[in-house]
């Protein structure tokens, strides 16, 4: 029996709807279901980041294959190193040519909102059907009341440590406040099992770490109206704390890029760092690291003087460029990929690396399948957007891309600048972007 596109889309929406009901337990009130008929002869190209856990890509491609089988629309999925996505998406936006869709990062979509297809109908539909997008992720995807992107996932980041090493340092449990955390790091250094966090130009790990430092102490890059507010006593306090913490690190973290902490942890050079769940899986699949894997634990970053957990996390969104000749096919594809059957399969395949964008998927069994997954389960719920507390846009993206915060902390902890000089320099650089 041959299934045509229209039949499939209707059927898949029905199945997905049913699955969604199963997840949420009650029938949600959702917006009218949009229907997209792919253009005749449509074929799509999606650019995505290279996977960190293989199951993610396998599940994504399997879902894509199902879509192609159902609709006849070929989807070519290209992948690039995750750091190369941002420039490639930017060039695609600028020249108006290239992939039809990109899985981009952070506030990329806000840099070129005019180049993107409005996904409000689809976003509103999914938002209503699956318990709503998480607020932080939604902020990255919305401009005003329009969806310029679809939130896809938050990549959880947690403190990873060796249980036996913190016990040897005199801590039975992992401290959950910044003061206790500093004590732990000091004790671990004294025991020769130091911590290490990236102070180099590490786009992911570096930014996660310094944003936690800043936010946990009450500092912020800009205020609600987008006025630069980095030069504050809270920022100085954050820097002083970072300096004290840096003293306990293994030497060389100021040159660390994203991969260094993984390597150092897996080689037993550091006993405490922060990473996605990929670190656990890298250890798990290596037979020689059996002992390390059994000793590995993960937890949320400690809470600072602000009294609540505040973390950046990487976020990824799906965008459709308006140079595509097949906008309906793109929307049909995204709709298919976000429906419960496919989304659950993808979240499961991602093995806790990708945290769901929609609340209904929080009950995915992956989060309870392994105790190591638990700290990553709430990433979408607790994340704070880049450029807090101001609006997302060109300036917030540019400040991060120019490593303003990363440089500020690195300059101060290494002694290249005093905390006051480092803050003043960061303020000046941030002003350059925010005053435009």
């Amino acid at each position: 029996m041959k299934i045509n596109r229209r039949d499939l889309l209707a059927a898949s929406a029905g199945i997905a709807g049913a699955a969604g009901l199963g997840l949420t337990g009650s029938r949600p009130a959702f917006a009218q279901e949009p229907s997209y008929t792919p253009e005749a002869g449509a074929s799509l190209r999606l650019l995505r980041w290279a996977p960190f856990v293989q199951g993610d890509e396998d599940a994504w491609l399997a879902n894509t294959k199902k879509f192609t089988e159902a609709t006849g629309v070929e989807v070519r999925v290209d992948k690039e190193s995750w750091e190369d996505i941002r420039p490639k998406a930017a060039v695609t936006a600028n020249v108006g040519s290239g992939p039809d869709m990109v899985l981009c990062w952070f506030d990329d979509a806000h840099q070129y909102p005019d180049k993107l297809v409005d996904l409000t109908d689809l976003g509103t539909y999914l938002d209503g059907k699956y318990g709503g997008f998480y607020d932080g992720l939604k902020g990255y995807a919305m401009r005003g009341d329009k969806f310029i992107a679809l939130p896809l996932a938050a990549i959880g980041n947690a403190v990873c440590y060796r249980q036996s090493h913190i016990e040897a340092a005199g801590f039975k449990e992992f401290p959950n406040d910044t003061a206790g955390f500093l004590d732990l790091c000091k004790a671990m250094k004294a025991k020769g099992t130091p911590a290490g966090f990236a102070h180099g130009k590490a786009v992911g790990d570096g930014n996660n770490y310094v944003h936690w430092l800043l936010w946990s102490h009450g500092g912020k890059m800009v205020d609600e109206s987008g006025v630069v507010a980095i030069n504050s006593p809270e920022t100085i306090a954050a820097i002083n704390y970072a300096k004290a913490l840096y003293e306990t690190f293994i030497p060389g973290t100021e040159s660390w890029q994203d991969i260094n902490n993984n390597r150092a942890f897996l080689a037993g050079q550091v006993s405490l760092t922060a990473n996605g769940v990929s670190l656990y899986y890298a250890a798990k699949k290596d037979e020689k690291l059996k002992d390390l894997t059994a000793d590995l634990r993960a937890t949320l970053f400690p809470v600072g003087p602000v009294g609540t957990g505040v973390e950046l996390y990487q976020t990824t969104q799906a965008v459709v460029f308006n140079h595509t000749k097949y906008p309906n096919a793109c929307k049909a594809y995204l709709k298919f990929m976000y429906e419960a059957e496919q989304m659950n399969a993808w979240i499961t395949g991602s093995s806790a690396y990708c945290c769901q964008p929609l609340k209904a998927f929080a009950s995915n069994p992956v989060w309870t399948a392994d105790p190591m997954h638990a700290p990553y389960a709430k990433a979408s719920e607790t994340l704070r957007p880049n450029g807090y507390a101001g609006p997302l846009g060109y300036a917030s993206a540019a400040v991060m891309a120019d490593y303003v915060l990363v440089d500020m902390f690195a300059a101060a902890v290494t002694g290249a600048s005093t905390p006051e000089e480092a803050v003043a320099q960061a303020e000046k650089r941030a002003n350059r972007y925010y005053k435009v």
Partner: protein
Amino acid sequence: MSSPSSPGPPSRSGALLLRFNNSRNALGFVFMLPAAIFLLGFLTYPLGLGVWLGFTDTRIGRAGDFIGLQNYIYLMDDEVFWLSVFNTVIYTLVASILKFALGLWLALILNEKLPFKSFFRAIVLLPWVVPTVLSALAFWWIYDAQFSILSWSLMKLGLIQQPINFLGDPFNARVSVIAANVWRGIPFVAISLLAGLQTIPVSLQEAASLDGATPWKRFRYVTLPMLTPIIAVVMTFSVLFTFTDFQLIYVLTKGGPVNATHLMATLSFQRGIPGGQLGEGAAIAVAMIPFLLASILFSFFGLQRRKWQQGGKD
């Protein structure tokens, strides 16, 4: 055999074609046209566009407006930009001098009668033929803060107690990236100069020897002056390659620590593409042009001076 037939009077278009075929100017123009189109399309246009972008506030996804010199005025007051200028000049200067000295030394050795000469010449080329990104990744491991083979060896020898912070300390990081660039650039200089050395007639060296010239004097007054035109060209290219280096830095440090190894090229990319400010990124790239022009002018009007080539002085 075909019988001769008298052709009729040429048509108007035929006459034009005949005139065209006989016109050296028209033919010359047509033959040069493909090259001109190529140059205009692939060199002049991108360069012109880059210069124009530097005068605008173009951002990714948004056409910019003309803002005059504002990008440059901002850069004048931007410490990171000036640090990148300083880094670029130091990087180019030190790396080029080292590449020249070591390359010339290697060329002179390879020009001697050595066993397995061809083999050694091929070996020397290896760093040049390995893709830059791959050699940069190899250096990344060599300079790793925890797993450096250099640190490991020195620690095993008991010469140091803990790994050297190659890429974390600003001074060490600059030295490390320069060393990697020199390693990669030597083959180009060495092989080019070797080619130049082989064009110097042996009879000149023999005549100088008969006149009692020492090896140093033969090098100073015969080899070097004869080699100067090649040196000028080779060093011009070497300086250009070094000044515009990107891949090595991007892989090794991304400009860190705290921008200590940011070159103008890497800063231009960081601001222009990931940062979204095409206008400012272009302005940084355009700011490289005066430096590049100066080095080209120096090599062509300086190193190629006839007096120098004849062993004379100013």
